[in-house]
């Protein structure tokens, strides 16, 4: 039978299997497997596994890094969902917004 777009996908089969496992384990569903969202999340997932591998090598302690419930988020998405927009110590929240010459920039 005809090859679907996902079968032409150059990414290794085992990555797709691991991604399927991730989706089951953390109850994730995206648009249909051939959809762009699924493909994009698979890319992000692959990037994050590589990042986790790099952290594992760099860590000086006993930490283990790898697939977590957050492995389908980009670093920006992760920061937006869980972190302060302005890291504390940069712009204290109590400060007043100060207008500036350029329109729209505060």
């Amino acid at each position, binding site marked *: 039978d005809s090859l679907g777009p996902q079968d032409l996908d150059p990414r290794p089969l085992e990555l797709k299997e691991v991604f399927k496992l991730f989706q089951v384990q953390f109850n994730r569903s995206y648009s249909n497997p051939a959809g762009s969202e699924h493909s994009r999340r698979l890319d992000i997932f692959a990037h994050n596994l590589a990042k*986790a591998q790099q952290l594992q090598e760099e860590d*000086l*302690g*006993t930490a283990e890094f790898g697939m977590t419930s957050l492995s389908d988020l980009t670093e920006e998405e*992760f920061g937006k*969902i869980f972190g302060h*927009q302005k890291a*504390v110590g*940069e712009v204290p929240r109590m400060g007043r917004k100060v207008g500036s010459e350029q329109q729209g920039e505060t």
Partner: protein
Amino acid sequence: LPRTCDWRNKAGIISRIKNQENCKCCWAMAAADNIEALWGIRGRIRACSPTLSPFASELLDCNRCGDGCQGGFVWDAFITVLNNSGLASEKDYPFKASVKTHRCLANKYRKVAWIQDFIMLEDNEHKIAQYLATHGPITVTINMKLLQHYKKGVIKAKPTTCDPQLVNHSVLLVGFGAETVSSQSHLRPHRSTPYWILKNSWGAHWGEEGYFRLHRGSNSCGITKYPFTARVDQPVRKLPVSCPP
């Protein structure tokens, strides 16, 4: 300083792991858990009782800086508690991971917990450990960057991989210890890795059943930048409490 300290090992001090879901209320959860633990240590409430678990919702609704789900700071939470003369029970103020700013109902309900003050500790890990062991859990704010891929073990990061100046996530410091790690060098076959035990608010399926550990002694991810804790009870000289090993 005791070799180990883990407030989870004493009943009624550390409540269950919560999940902040899509609301950036780590700051309110850390402050609420801090107050709850201090009340639990003084035997004033049982932290795990269903009526008291997360005070966070009231802190969100009454947050002095507007929508608490957009982020905030633990010191704002403590000021909110002082302004409202305490916190209502979970029964009266059910937790929702959403905020109705200006819907602050604090004045409607009887208070079940309050604080006298809140303090910032010195940026010194030995003194933070001493205070933790003799007074109780402390809120800290760290750079959360490595937590996205964290599964277990002790994170010991270099400033280049986890900038200690860019702290953006508040959690509760509940203990410390040291784990012995065998190493290749025949000179020192075993080395000990001192660590902090921290309570996160991303659900119990994340990390070590909702907790994680950071190396102790290297200001890992900026842990010493904002150590804040409430003070419960008058500052009379009292025998300090002792943390279970």
